[in-house]
């Protein structure tokens, strides 16, 4: 009788077509080519070289492109950039920096309203009460429409359409208000869907457990499903707010000087100097990058906790 596993190093045992015993010698060594490239120091060298080559290429593009000098002058003129940031009343220049403050105000007000309004829409779609049937359908239509229409059109519609109605008290609001309303209408449709995905991610067994305790459908939603759903969707929500933060710039199309982008527009239309746009872009990055890093950290923490607890999340 043949001894099982006696043919060390063979890939397959001929009789059973199964592998037994120790694998062939050298099975656990890295191949020569891969070991050459990997390892701490070598990796550091390779990544440095690749970074230098890449950045060098981009810089070279800016230096040697045919229109490079003009672009540097119009987009990266230090004097113009400073002037755009502070504003210059004598030249009729608005301050991009001050405009940004309005932008942040608008963003914060819109965000709070969106978080609330979107949650109402998402919950409405979950409720079973027959009385709410028309509202449920309305919520579906609302999310379909406002997710499908570009934000810029919503802004035009509200900003130019509502004043044209000459409604008392409604048609006389400032562009700031119209802008916030347009942002809330558009973004709530997206955020409602994010909430809904979060609600769907809560396992059905959680609902069964809540209902088995005699909790009504609404109370199960309120105490068991929503708290877990909202925890799950915080990172994607933050992601949406990063894009909301920069989309507030679109409200500038309404014509009032209400934020950074608009200030930049006036600069460029009068002087054909685009450095103010660069300033606006840099200021936006100063706001969105910390938000993005914060989101990353939340996601990492969430993943860490899932790993640590084998799937259960507090």
């Amino acid at each position, binding site marked *: 009788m043949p001894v099982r596993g006696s043919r060390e190093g063979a890939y397959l045992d001929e009789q059973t077509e199964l592998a037994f015993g120790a694998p062939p010698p050298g099975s656990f060594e890295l191949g020569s080519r891969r070991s050459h490239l990997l390892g701490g120091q070598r990796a550091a060298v390779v990544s440095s070289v690749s970074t230098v080559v890449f950045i060098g290429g981009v810089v070279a593009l800016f230096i040697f492109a045919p229109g490079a000098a003009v672009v540097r002058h119009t987009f990266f003129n230090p004097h113009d950039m400073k002037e755009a940031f502070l504003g210059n009343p004598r030249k009729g220049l608005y301050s991009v920096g001050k405009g940004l403050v309005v932008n942040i105000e608008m963003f914060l007000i819109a965000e709070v309203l969106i978080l609330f309004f979107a949650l109402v829409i998402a919950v409405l779609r979950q409720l079973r009460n027959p009385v709410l049937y028309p509202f449920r359908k309305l919520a579906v239509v609302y999310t379909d429409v406002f997710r499908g229409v570009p934000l810029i059109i919503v802004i035009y519609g509200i900003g130019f359409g509502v004043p044209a109605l000459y409604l008392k008290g409604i048609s006389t609001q400032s562009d700031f208000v119209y802008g916030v309303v347009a942002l809330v209408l558009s973004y709530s449709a997206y955020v409602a869907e994010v909430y809904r995905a979060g609600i769907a991610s809560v396992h059905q067994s959680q609902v069964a457990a809540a*209902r*088995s305790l005699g909790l009504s459908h609404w109370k199960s939603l309120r105490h068991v499903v929503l708290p877990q759903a909202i925890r799950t969707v915080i990172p994607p929500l933050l992601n949406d707010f990063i894009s909301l933060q920069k989309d507030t710039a679109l409200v500038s199309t309404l014509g009032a000087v209400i934020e950074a982008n608009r200030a930049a527009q006036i600069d460029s239309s009068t002087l054909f100097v685009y450095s103010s746009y660069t300033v606006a872009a840099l200021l936006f990055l100063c706001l969105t990058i910390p938000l993005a890093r914060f989101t990353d950290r939340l996601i990492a923490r969430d993943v860490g906790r899932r790993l640590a607890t084998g799937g259960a999340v507090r």
Partner: protein
Amino acid sequence: MSTPEDAPDPGGAAAPPEPPPAPSEAIRLEEVHKSFGALEVLRGIDLSVATHEVICLIGASGSGKSTLLRCVNLLEPVNAGRILLWGHDITAPGVDENAVRRHIGIVFQAFNLFPHMSVLRNVTLGPIQALGVPRDEAEEAGRSLLRRFGLSEKQDDYPDRLSGGQQQRVAIVRALAMRPRIMLLDEVTSALDPELVSEVLDVIRELATAGMTMLIATHEMGFARDIADRVCFLDEGVILEQGPPKQVFTAPSNARTQQFLRRIVQAGRL
């Protein structure tokens, strides 16, 4: 622990199934059918459970044990047949399912604790939200129940801090906090590591001794033999055989029961 009879009536006057004085028939299933799409899981179940009786449902996976329990708790609507609770048809239209569930506790195989709540809040959610018990009263009662089942120290922990056995004991306490008259246990030890099974079984044993009416779906045959007043063998959605555990386990009359038990013995589970 008080026996179920002298627990205060938690449902209030509006609850349809008013438990009449024991002894009587607590649950009665008549020709219960349940399908999921084309798959008929329960194919005519008739079963009568007396108050204080402990019934173990045994049978292969997919035989309909869990579905039967979920139907009794109205988590699944039945397609045909009736379920009576102390003589009240709870499958009839117009029955307040929340009120029915307040009298029937269910414990699930996967515990289904609320991961975002502390142990104490898991236990008090039902009494506070479904029964309208004031928070401090509910917490007092919850703490004393947890103490009774050796979980005092865990009351402020979140479920993910507990072992599987502890989680399942909390799930049992959560159901008991509603002061149910009936407990349904759905393979409550199947998800546990072997060394954690006995702590959960001990709790169930205690409930049985106290007189709780229980329907238990289980794969723990030794436990079923010890605790059950009656064992029902389910096969493909019908109760093929039922009787005292001694009779079903030692002298099964049905060929399918014999086959099932032979496999259990071969697997070393009996």
